[in-house]
């Protein structure tokens, strides 16, 4: 029984040793060695290109992030309306050089107010300080 098993094992081994023998014999060792060396020689260049290739990839990611952030900012502005308009006490472009320190503090405080109120009651806060022109401008902007 054991002898029989051994014979079978040996036969199996012999057949296994023949597997791939033809392909191995056909192999041109010198050509293979030169081909491998040539590819290895090219590898540093490939690595350099790979690193260079990272640049555009990161640029693409950065560009995508900028677009997403920009779109988010635009959407937020559109959704909330032009918030700064609601709190404008000193119209943009007005010469501030004639204002005193306390007047400037008041102006800055007024500019801060809409930001503080964003989480609160919304655009109706501070409308009482707007003149008819400002209100018309605000309505036009809300109408799009």
């Amino acid at each position, binding site marked *: 029984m054991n002898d029989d098993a051994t014979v079978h094992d040996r036969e199996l081994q012999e057949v296994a*040793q023949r*597997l*791939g023998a033809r392909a*191995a014999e056909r*192999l041109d*060792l010198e050509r*293979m*060695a030169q*081909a*491998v060396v040539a590819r290895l020689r090219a590898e540093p260049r490939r690595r350099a290109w790979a690193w260079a290739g990272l640049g555009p990839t990161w640029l693409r990611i950065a560009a995508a992030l900028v677009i997403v952030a920009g779109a988010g900012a635009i959407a937020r502005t559109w959704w909330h309306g032009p918030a700064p308009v609601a709190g404008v006490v000193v119209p943009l472009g007005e010469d501030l050089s004639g204002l005193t320190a306390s007047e400037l503090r008041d102006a800055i405080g007024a500019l801060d107010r809409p930001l503080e109120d964003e989480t609160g009651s919304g655009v109706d806060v501070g409308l009482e300080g707007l003149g008819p022109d400002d209100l018309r401008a605000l309505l036009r902007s809300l109408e799009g």
Partner: protein
Amino acid sequence: MTPAEPVAAVPTDAALIAAWEGGDEQAAAELVRRHARALARFLGGTGAPDMDVDDLVQETFIRAFRAVAKFRGQCRFRTWLMTIGGNVLRDAQRRWRRSRLVPLGDDVRAADGDPHEHAVAGEAEARLAAGLERLPPMQRDVFLLRAQQGLEYNEIAAALGTTPGAARVHYHHAVKRLKEHMT
């Protein structure tokens, strides 16, 4: 003045690997010359079509040289190469399946020599190859490393990341299943 110490006629694999890591391309070429045929036989045994063996051998060496820093001498370089070769072949087989390209089998490919003689001699090989294809990869690799390459279980276990006892069990399972397939 004493003559310079003669350089060893046959450098060890470890010496060649160190030389390659130091930038000696000829050391890499020598490693290829030394191990390519054994690797080709192993790949042939694991189911690589003859026509693809050259490419697979080349790819195996490239991967091995790129990752040679990971080789810590846990087993012989040749054995390590064969484990890489097995992975290269599996990757290739996945690509072939995806692209639906079926490499020609030995039975339908033109062969050198007397066709009848080739058919008779190749019948057992074809049956064994078919049986090997049905084995789990670990059993197949253990069987080939043992039966074809003549490695000890310790060496096989170190290469495949298992224990010698487990390698022995894999081998016996493989032999049992292959015998069933061949009878």
